[in-house]
């Protein structure tokens, strides 16, 4: 820069002659088409709208065999490749493929689908959960917890989080929750077939049973009339007299009223609860008693 200044002072006039020439040379380098072109491209993109979502399997970088291998390895299970493939084929997909091959006139090739595996897997899951929960909970509670764990919502949540969503072979897109939960059941069955029942049950324990972590059983199983349920349960155990007592009350007849009710059997406190009126307090106490009696708060050890 300093050199340039010096030279400018020396040959000022000479260079000023060429100044115009330099400026023109500079301005020719501005690419005046860039901005309008980008604007136009942006406008067209806006007009067309967002690209429709495509199944991952339609991408160029997709290798189904590699995906199947990684699926088994990810879960730490050795799955038989053919059984896994079968577990991922939906019946509708298999039927459509068959019809299409008929139309093409190619040789008759039946594709096996996962219909039987779904039922088998469902059996494995519910049997295992029943076996586990019958050890710790009364039947009603066990049933409602099992129902919660085997809903379509829950199983599809598990299925999509172990990577089933992209590798299912189905006609629909996006893949429905029902399909994912069915396929999860089929995978459990495929695991049993390729290894043994024990291994499949461990799989169910690790992925389905562990969903109860951090959840309260009393939130899942919510009895409508806890006091009646408690008296019924105690009668089965040979205790007939349950005595609710008003232990404490504060600010009665106001909006901030608080009552505390304790339930006693044979002069022993079985549950205590509180609420804004005596009826609610009694039911809360019954819920507390049920939690203690059925050991709902205890950690299941296996």
């Amino acid at each position, binding site marked *: 820069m300093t050199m340039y200044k010096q030279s400018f002072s020396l040959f000022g006039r000479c260079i000023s002659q060429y100044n115009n020439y330099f400026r023109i040379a500079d301005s020719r380098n501005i690419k005046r088409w860039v901005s309008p072109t980008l604007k136009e491209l942006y406008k067209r993109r806006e007009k067309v709208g967002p690209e429709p979502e495509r199944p*991952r399997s339609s991408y*160029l*970088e*997709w*290798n189904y065999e*590699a*995906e199947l*291998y*990684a699926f088994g*390895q*990810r*879960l*730490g299970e050795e799955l038989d490749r053919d059984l896994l493939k079968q577990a991922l084929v939906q019946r509708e997909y298999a039927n459509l493929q068959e019809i299409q091959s008929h139309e093409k006139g190619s040789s008759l090739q039946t594709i096996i689908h996962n219909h039987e595996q779904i039922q088998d897997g469902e059996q494995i899951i519910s049997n295992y959960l029943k076996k586990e929960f019958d050890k710790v909970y009364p039947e009603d509670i066990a049933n409602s917890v099992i129902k919660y764990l085997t809903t379509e919502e829950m199983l599809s*949540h*598990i299925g*999509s*989080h*172990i*990577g089933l*969503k*992209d590798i299912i072979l189905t006609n629909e897109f996006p893949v429905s929750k029902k399909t994912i939960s069915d396929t999860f059941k089929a995978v459990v069955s495929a695991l049993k077939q390729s290894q043994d029942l024990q291994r499949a049950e461990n799989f169910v*324990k*690790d*992925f389905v*049973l*562990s*969903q109860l*972590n*951090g959840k309260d059983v009393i939130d899942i199983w919510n009895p409508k009339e806890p006091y009646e349920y408690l008296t019924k349960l105690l009668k089965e155990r040979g205790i007939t007299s349950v005595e609710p007592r008003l*232990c*404490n009350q*504060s*600010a009665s007849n106001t909006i901030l009223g*608080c009552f*505390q009710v304790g339930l006693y059997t044979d002069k022993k406190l079985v549950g205590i609860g*509180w609420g804004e009126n005596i009826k609610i307090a009694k039911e809360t106490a019954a819920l507390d008693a049920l939690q203690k009696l059925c050991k709902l708060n205890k950690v299941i050890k296996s």
Partner: protein
Amino acid sequence: MSNSHIFLKPGFINVPLQNGIGRYVGQLQRVVLKFCKNNGSSRGMREFIESDLVNFAKNNPGIVVYLKPRRHRTAVIKAEYLNGDTQWLSCRNFSKDEIYKWLELLRKQQKNHEGSRIRKLWHTENPSIQGPWTPFTFRDPKLNLATFPDEELGKSENVASTSQDELVEMFKRQKLLELEAASASN
């Protein structure tokens, strides 16, 4: 929190699918390495592919690795997680080691954390073990047997002295001083 984090989506630490309660499942399900075969900006990526990629794939059989050569475009890593997140990472002019470092990060992550900030470094679903407070929670046990009205319990605490009491005190102090003065003169 600095100013640049104000518009990031706040969230808590969480783990997808109770991962690790039963067994641990690596959450990175597939990764696509995009690169150019002759452009200089992809040099590190090409070196990584030549020397380290096979080992990476061997050590992580649960991750599907795809290679996608494209002419004259920047090297890119695209990671896909089990929870459906995808993460796009530009690797322009990255060295071999840098790419390895980023891939390790993607492999160990639970999901794409870009565009979000963690509000706290801990999180619990059960903030209280004792349960909610009621008027009876820390009640003095001696109240159980008390009959009301009770003189002792009904007594007011911290009653400030009245101005009349103050005056009496002042008068007494004055008397004392007078007595002392009288005794001193004698």
